[in-house]
């Protein structure tokens, strides 16, 4: 936890006790220090993750256009996991709500729920793996299956990374550091929405871009 705390701790320049963060960029008048560096870092990371998953998707389309891929029937567990991740995002959004009506206790409960729902998402994804495996959808078989295992695993790793950040937020809330907890919760909420967006795009691609469509997209049919 200590490492996680430090990971999210940012020095930034406003720490200079002698020069309070008056925070106006000289020529532009932009209040630079109103933006949390961790928030900017998260945006940048989400950009990197977007590049990663986009490339996976391009690879998916090019590969399944090859002629040996066959569409697979998706078990209903995939819909359940998608719903869980959506609920996790809703809970996290409630936890991150600001303004005079903010109830710290309710926010803490929502924060916990957001994390637990994300864990449940991981659990159901693993369940989906076992169902597909029983249906003879192998990692080293039909490329549609290979890509499902690969993409859901990569997405799951990103969810686990988010849960590490979530644990830091829960720790801050448990210590009674409400301001820090609220700040981290807002970042978690943004990341949860991103995870949902990525998963929906991946699932839509896996379900919607059939080998025939991919072949047409790649101009090989």
């Amino acid at each position: 936890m200590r490492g996680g705390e430090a990971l999210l701790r940012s020095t930034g320049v406003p720490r200079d006790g002698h020069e309070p963060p008056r925070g106006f960029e000289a020529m532009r008048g932009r209040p630079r220090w109103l933006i949390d560096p961790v928030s900017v870092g998260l945006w940048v990371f989400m950009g990197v993750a977007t590049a990663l998953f986009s490339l996976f998707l391009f690879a998916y389309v090019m590969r399944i256009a090859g002629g040996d891929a066959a569409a697979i029937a998706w078990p209903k567990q995939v819909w359940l996991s998608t719903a869980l991740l959506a609920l996790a995002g809703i809970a996290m959004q409630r936890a991150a709500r600001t303004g005079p009506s903010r109830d710290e206790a309710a926010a803490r409960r929502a924060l916990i729920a957001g994390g637990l729902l994300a864990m449940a998402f991981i659990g159901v994804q693993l369940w989906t793996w076992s169902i597909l495996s029983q249906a003879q959808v192998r990692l080293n078989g039909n490329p549609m299956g290979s890509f499902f295992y690969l993409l859901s695993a990569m997405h799951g790793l990103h969810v686990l990374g988010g849960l590490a950040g979530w644990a830091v937020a829960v720790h801050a809330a448990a210590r009674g550091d409400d301001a820090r907890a609220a700040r981290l919760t807002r970042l978690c909420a943004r990341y949860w929405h991103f995870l949902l967006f990525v998963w929906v795009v991946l699932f839509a691609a896996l379900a919607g871009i059939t080998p025939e469509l991919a072949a047409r997209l790649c101009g090989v049919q």
Partner: protein
Amino acid sequence: MAYADAHDDHGPQSFWTKYVWSQDHKVIAIQYAGTAILVGLVGVALSNLMRLQLGFPGVFKFIDPEHYYQFVTMHGMIMVIYLLTALFLGGFGNYCIPLMVGARDMVFPFLNMLSFWVYLLSVIVLMVSFFVPGGPTGAGWTLYPPQAVLPGTPGASWGIVLMLVSLAIFIVAATMGGLNYVTTVLQARTRGMTLLRMPLTVWGIFVATILALLAFPALFVSAVMMLLDRLLGTSFFMPALVSMGQVSEYRGGSPLLFQHLFWFFGHPEVYIVALPAFGIVSDLISVHARKSIFGYRQMVWAIVAIGVLSVVVWAHHMFVSGMNPYFGFFFATTTLIIAVPTAIKVYNWLLTLWRGDIHLSVPMLFALGFISTFAIGGLTGLFLGNVSVDIPLSNTYFVVAHFHMVMGVSPILVVFGGLYHWYPKISGRMLNDTLGRIHFWVTFLGTYAIFFPMHYLGVLGMPRRYYAYEGYEFIPPSALHLNTFISVVAFVVATAQLLFVFNLLWSLKYGRASGPNPWRAASLEWQTPDTPPVHGNWGPHLPVAYRWAYAYSVPGAPEDFIAQNAPPEAGGFEPEPGHDTATRGVPA
């Protein structure tokens, strides 16, 4: 951590927190650079082993074809990824960004420390591959499937696995570092340090980092998918094939998909290395010619334009792989368009030098050397960017000559120039000048002697990646003699690098004390209250930037430079059309 206040915080005190588990960007920079230089020396040694075989074929019995291909592969990967990328971003990026933008550190120091240790882990995994059964991979640095993972290719059992794992680990490290560099540039600039006042070194590293963050995922995707092909029997890249008489389990995979992913990373990688070099060389030329950089804004936009264009040219590495002719036309066109912003930069360097007060110091020599080698390498790039010229020259020594001049020799000359330039700030001592000049001339002339003749070998049709060249009627004996000459020069140049390493270590203790600003440079890193800068960089007060970093030889100024943080009354503001320069530069 709140080390801004000099009264109640003195930074880490123990040896371990100060030098090993350090979160100080300057220490991390040195850790990165030291590791990169060490692994780079391994890369140089491997190139010399290759040259032993090429210059004196069959004489050294321990260099069999398997070993030769392993040397080729490891040399390429080490130099491109583990030396140049790590040194420019992890070394120069870490050292220069916070000091040049007036910050106390990177915005995420702990992540920064992790970045180095993860990088070190990737290097260790790579080095371990020398000692595993079968040795490191010999698939060529491009690691093309299907041959990279098939028996018959050296290192197909363990070597390729360790290479792919090492690359994946490296990408994690580079991402951690990249998040820091980008966020620090965006968020931790001191007052008055607008984006268009940042030194070009920071601009180069900043845009290169964005490129790295967007391009390295492509290598990550290809590494993960190839690992799965190799270890778990998937067929992402592996087609159905018969290997050594055995029908493999693979079916349907696309080797061409790997090529696209690899080069979607691989070409931006050229600019991940080149853009920091462009930035650094701009600063070296301006400081050592005592003249403001010509066309600062053009230089910034050229860096941005090159960065953008570099992600839409990748398939020019695949002209011989076969593609729709219209795609070939597209990629040839985008490739040639890159010449425009690149040429703008070269012209601006020359115009900066024009009528400058040129000091032929060692950093300046390396900067001038860079302009020469980069122009040569860039011009041969125009040849290879054209499909019709590329096809006959592809896979010949012309390509070897081109990319070594443009992205081997050129960036490494800038690395040396940068190290000679900033060493006094890093250590408080000057590098030995005589050793530096010997190092420059041997390296500069030597690399020309190595790579320039390779253009002729390439035009002659001499294929690259061959273990031996005897018995080919179209290769005359003179080509083999030329190879011997190249090899001898390569050994001399390699030895000169040891001289440089000796200089680095010797000068730490015996070098002449440099003082805070031996080059009389204007940018912020030279204005720190302590040299070397202490933890937190700036003492109790952060500097305030009142002007750009290129106020040299300003008419009427008492000295021939005005520091970026000198009071506004000193003048020397950046030229900007439409603004009254007399009242500009004062932060709100």
